[in-house]
């Protein structure tokens, strides 16, 4: 049985679960929507003010929403014992983890990427900014999920849940946040966003290279 097939099985199951439990991808979107729509109530509804904070709110909302989906990665499996099947597989654990993260990125990332520009219009942001927001959310969500997988793996056997995940993950995603929101801000101010995008891409690649390995190590530690 080749590595491809095993990783494929992991990926396929994740997709089956997505199809079976629609709330897994529907709820993050609604959470995102709600975070985005709470701010006008608290800040006031003048469109100039909203424009200023719009990019920030949408980006932070997308990251929080992705972060709250992290427990999906391993928690259910740890509870019912199927995590041990994955650990016991003779194929490299990091690849299997990557397969799961990929599935989650595709499902959740796509949904958030579609939602972000729509919300941008609520905040009266111009089309170009909305488009750039979509692009940078599309890059930021996988980065967060990759980094978050390490925390999720460490926390399968610990108490603390969503909140401890946030504490561990969010500080590490600040670069993504800076460059992701930065790219949209650049467009907003009519400047070229190339540098920010390049840096965000570099950060994603780095995460792609390192995080699955770290997450595999983390999973071994926490299920030892």
């Amino acid at each position, binding site marked *: 049985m080749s590595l491809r097939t095993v990783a494929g099985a992991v990926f396929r199951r994740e997709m089956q679960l997505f199809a079976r439990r629609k709330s897994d991808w529907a709820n993050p979107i609604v959470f995102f929507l709600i975070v985005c729509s709470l701010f006008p109530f608290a800040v006031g509804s003048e469109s100039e003010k909203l424009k200023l904070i719009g990019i920030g709110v949408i980006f932070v909302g997308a990251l929080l929403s992705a972060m709250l989906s992290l427990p999906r990665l391993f928690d259910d499996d740890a509870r019912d014992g199927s995590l041990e*099947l994955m650990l*016991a597989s003779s194929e490299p654990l990091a690849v299997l983890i990557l397969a799961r993260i990929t599935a989650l990125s595709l499902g959740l990332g796509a949904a958030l990427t579609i939602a972000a520009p729509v919300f941008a219009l609520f905040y009266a942001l111009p089309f170009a900014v909305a488009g750039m927001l979509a692009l940078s959310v599309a890059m930021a969500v996988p980065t967060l999920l990759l980094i978050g997988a390490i925390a999720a793996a460490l926390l399968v056997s610990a108490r603390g849940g969503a909140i401890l995940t946030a504490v561990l993950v969010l500080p590490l995603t600040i670069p993504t946040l800076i460059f992701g929101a930065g790219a949209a801000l650049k467009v907003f101010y009519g400047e070229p966003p190339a540098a920010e995008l390049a840096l965000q891409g570099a950060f994603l690649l780095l995460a792609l290279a390192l995080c699955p390995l770290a997450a595999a190590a983390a999973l071994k530690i926490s299920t030892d």
Partner: protein
Amino acid sequence: MGRIQGARRIVSLCANLRLEALAAERGGKAVFADVNVDVAAGTLLRVIGPNGAGKTTLLRILAGLGAASAGSARWCGADAVEYRASEAAIFAGHASAMNDALTVAENLSYAAALAGFDSSSSDVRRAMSQLGVEKLINRRFGSLSQGQRKRASLARLLLRTQPGERAWLLDEPFVALDTDTQAQLASLISQELAAGAIVVLTSHQSVTINALKIQELTL
């Protein structure tokens, strides 16, 4: 990769277990110490002891899922983790290893794929029917009764087509099964032993299992 694949080829042709001065601790306290046993192919090893004696702890170590605090557990000379990676050992414990939201069939083919068997759906059906649950194949696992869950999760043991020199590590497998299914499982275990496997078993229930070689280990 290479190393493990090498190991796989060596161990999968073999079933033999040797515990030397094995000790374990949980929560900082010693559970058992100085366990020495030699188990040959085709043997049923019954692990016996009152609640809290460390039976589950021992089985998890044999499965490569827990760490010993001293001593060694070697399968055909290989480490328990390696033996497990070689897909020669199957552990079935209290947890079902099945996702509530997926059907029994989906759960089983996932388990098969991860354990490295190329498991077509007919294999799944055969495994299910050997435990008398073929009707549940498309039911959501979460909607099953306790006994049905146990049956479905034990079907994992039967996915590989030919029995051979391998190991089953069964922690309380008869729990929640009705008497007919208990007998059925007992005969499956006998078959497996006859084909040269090692079966390590804990059970507080007195179910008779026919086997040529039976060893007991009291913790």
